[in-house]
């Protein structure tokens, strides 16, 4: 009887699944009971109520407004903005760096090729955290004091960071920016539309597509979109005015870009290598130059192979931005998983917030990249 029941595959399946649920529930339950006991002993109330209490700590650096009296809830938002800032900056630079290194590795020139290979191999095989520490402590912390700054074209680099001139917006800046945006959007629509027509119409469309944004730019300049530049000036021991890129941001930005860049270089290289050589031969026999072949034939096809692995590299950048915690860059992990957790003792809530922030940022990014992937994917007709 029992043997017969055991040999019934469906029954066995349900038993197995039931057992799994029971096992997981037991472990989770055991942890939950212990946690409740431990929290009671430390008299920490469970829940998200702490988010509306004033935080009392300061952000050494913030893009959004922040006062010491703001709440923990606000701190999550401000920290998220810092994470997003460094991620966006790093994703932009790492893409360019990866593309350049990837193409360098395929160069006909032996010196260029070998240099790129050595760079890629060295960066790929050393820990990212050591690289970030190197940039932060060995390079940026070793820079001179404000008085002996390196300077070029009104920009200053010293131990306190990189000081850049900041534009001062004119009265009509909002309107100008809007006009610019519309012109660029319209221009790109026309540029795409030019493929449908031939002859003079095509040339006219292309010209208008370029002239629109240019006109908007001239208009912005004429109406004084940027009224003036605010130059950083040395006052006492530090610079005042202009924009400052703090060394923590700079080190994390460089660290994320360089490390991910070499992985992107490998993706780019293998995607280009994966394109059939016949494509190049056909393009060359049509009279396309090497550059045209790369730009018009190889890269558009390689792009389709590049995007899915590129997406996961972008997600890596976002996740690795948490390494900023090691060099005191105030991002989500440091401010919520570190400072907030230590101050309130709300370990579970703080970690849950950190994890859900990373999961949702990653989700948004991969959704965006998937949309782009579908847009460039081969459309079979």
């Amino acid at each position, binding site marked *: 009887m029992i043997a017969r029941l055991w040999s019934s595959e469906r029954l066995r399946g349900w038993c*197995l699944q039931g057992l799994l649920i029971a096992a*997981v529930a037991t472990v989770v339950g055991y942890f939950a009971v212990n946690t409740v006991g431990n929290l009671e002993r430390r008299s920490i109330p469970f829940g998200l109520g702490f988010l509306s209490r004033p935080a009392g700590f300061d952000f050494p650096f913030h893009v959004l407004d922040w006062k010491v009296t703001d709440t923990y809830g606000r701190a999550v938002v401000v920290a998220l903005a810092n994470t997003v800032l460094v991620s966006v900056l790093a994703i932009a630079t790492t893409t360019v760096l990866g593309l350049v290194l990837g193409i360098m590795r395929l160069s006909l*020139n032996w010196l*260029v090729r070998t240099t790129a290979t050595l760079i890629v191999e060295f960066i790929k*095989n050393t820990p990212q955290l050591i690289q970030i520490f190197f940039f932060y402590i*060995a390079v940026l912390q070793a820079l001179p004091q404000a008085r002996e700054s390196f300077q070029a074209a009104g920009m200053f680099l010293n131990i306190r960071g990189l000081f850049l001139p900041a534009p001062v917006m004119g009265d009509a800046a909002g309107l100008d920016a809007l006009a610019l945006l519309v012109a660029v959007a319209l221009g790109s629509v026309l540029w795409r539309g030019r493929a449908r027509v031939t002859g003079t119409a095509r040339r006219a469309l292309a010209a208008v597509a370029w002239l629109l944004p240019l006109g908007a730019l001239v208009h912005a300049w004429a109406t004084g979109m940027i009224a003036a530049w605010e130059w950083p000036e040395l006052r006492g021991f530090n610079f005042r005015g202009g924009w400052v890129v703090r060394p923590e941001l700079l080190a994390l930005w460089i660290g994320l870009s360089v490390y991910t860049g070499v992985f992107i270089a490998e993706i780019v290289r293998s995607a280009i290598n994966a394109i059939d050589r016949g494509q190049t031969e056909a393009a060359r026999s049509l009279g396309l130059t090497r550059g045209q072949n790369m730009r018009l034939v190889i890269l558009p096809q390689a792009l389709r192979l590049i995007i899915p692995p590129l997406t996961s590299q972008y997600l890596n950048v976002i996740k690795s931005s*948490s390494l900023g915690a090691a060099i005191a860059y105030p991002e989500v992990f440091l401010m919520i998983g570190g400072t907030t*957790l230590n101050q309130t003792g709300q370990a579970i809530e703080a*970690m849950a917030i950190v994890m859900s922030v990373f999961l949702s940022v*990653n989700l948004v990014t991969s959704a965006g990249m998937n949309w782009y992937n579908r847009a460039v994917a081969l459309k079979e007709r």
Partner: protein
Amino acid sequence: MATVAPDLALRPSANMLGRAWRWMRVNLLGSPLNIVLTVAMLAVFWFTLAPLVRWAVIDATIAGDSKAGCTGAGACWTFIKVRFPMFFYGRYPVDERWRVDLAALLLAVFAVPAMLDKLRHRWIAVLALVAVYPVIAGILLRGGIIGLRSVETALWGGLMLNAVLTFLAVAGSLPFGILLALGRRSKFPVVRIFSICFIELWRGVPLLTALFMGMVMLPLFLPNGVTVDNLVRAAVALTLFTSAYMAEVVRGGLQAIPLGQFDGAKALGLGFWQMQALIVLPQALRIVVPNIVNTVIDLFKDTTLVVIVSLFDMLGVVNQSLKDSAWLGMAKEGYAFAALVFFVCCWSMSLYSRRLERRLGVEQPGRH
């Protein structure tokens, strides 16, 4: 993808000089653009590589045993020389360091047979590596029995700690990852959903969250008064995190197995576990060994993150040494040395992985 002009490639070589000149014409001076690139690269080398060599070799100091001997013009390798044992053993007692050396030697002894793919009963070697070696190494390093002095794990540090954490996490995450990969392909929805949730959760968050959960949350989860060794906490966190990545690697291998293999196994009357253990996994794991090695490389590099939760791995030792008032301003030397050590380890592993990849490429199914 260097394309060689046919007339140059086919002409027989006259002499060494002629060959060298031809090679230069193809690889360095092939076209106007190529010449410009060569000149530009030489200029870049002049401005970057030359100062680097001057700093690291020509102006560098290694003599003496204090900072006083260093000129300041170049690197002060004296710092590395004096601190050398610290970088590898951390605060492990000096008299007992032979135990670490012996454990490292034994690792080589156990690992080499497991890496030889010509060996007849290779699985025995692999089993010995993951089951017998950890016991021996554990007794050797921790001590406390058979006359060995007990050495607290709090004293473990340096590169040895990176190696121990990597080994523990690999030994744990490989079997767990295989189970997760099988679970993700299971026909039972509950098993599948659990596996997917576990894998995607860990793959979606930074490793740092896993380490923090191990450090901060684990004590909360356990009954009051139960404490877990810091090293074990970090190892558990690394294991859970790496399992998710291992699972995806193994799944890739499982997907490459033709369906006929499953049908064949079932036709022979094998049950699920027999089929997996005897037919599917031996083939699937063989394909993914290079990817497993790559995951191990990533893990080894990532063990440096334990410095953020206050364990003194190699990076931690470097950070601490830099704060020593007798050795201020040694950051470049310290990090460069640490990076170099990791590079040697990771690069040799990646060479092994690439060699396997090439061999697998030759022995693709259907080619014999």
